[in-house]
């Protein structure tokens, strides 16, 4: 399995008050913990369990993911462009790991 790779698609500029669409995806197995390997042993659960989006340091959207979210979780959501600032995207994995991306948004 290759290392999970997060990707986001966000506009770089927006008008003040405009609603922008944010598309995110991360390549990840999302192992449910319900499967068994060839020896009959349970394959331990390893999923992305939380996703957070911060905008200029403030949490503006978050999601708790459970086993029923598909592999390579895709999340699309909408934000209101209020100020120029940094968007931070954080994916938290079972076992304490995490993945992160940043994006600069210019608001005119």
């Amino acid at each position, binding site marked *: 399995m290759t290392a999970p790779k997060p990707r986001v698609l966000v506009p770089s500029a927006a008008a003040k008050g405009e609603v922008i669409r944010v598309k995110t995806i991360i390549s990840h197995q999302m192992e*449910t913990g319900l499967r068994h390997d060839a020896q009959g042993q349970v394959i331990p659960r390893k999923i992305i369990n939380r996703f957070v989006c911060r905008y200029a340091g403030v949490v503006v959207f*978050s*999601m*708790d993911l459970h086993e*029923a979210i*598909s592999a390579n979780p*895709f999340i699309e*959501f909408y934000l209101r462009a209020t100020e120029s600032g940094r968007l931070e995207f954080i994916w938290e994995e079972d076992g304490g790991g995490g993945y992160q991306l940043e994006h600069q948004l210019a608001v005119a």
Partner: protein
Amino acid sequence: MSLTRRDMLMAACVGSAALASAFPSPGSARAQDDTAQDDTIDLIERLTGQTPTLSDRLHLVMPAVFPTGYTVPMDLDIDSPMTADDHVRRIRVFAPQNPLIEVASFNFVPQRSIARVSTRIRLAKPQYVVAVAEMNDGMLLMTKTFVDVATNGCI
């Protein structure tokens, strides 16, 4: 007492009738679900400790039929101005027939995010998918959509 041919036939008939009632045909699953509207509400009451209200402000858009249970698209949109005194705090999504019924929960922030989200989910069998929105005044609004999947996506 020796068993007659008639006794044997009677026993076979009773046995197969019992089997048929124990394993209803898959086609009847939806009909049963329709009459079991209250079951969904009971389930949400058990999970949240609150009685949800069916609402048409929630739009849970999913394909009616989908070939695979691994990646079923789900669009969720709630009619809400998202102002400080009228907004959606959280939406929880459940798949009651999955081995683990909780699917996801989405947290929104008034004036910063819009109560609209899309993702892809796994479904084990054809079933109603339920969305419950927790409003800022504590009200629970609910909607559900039937999705027919051809294969099990939860193995």
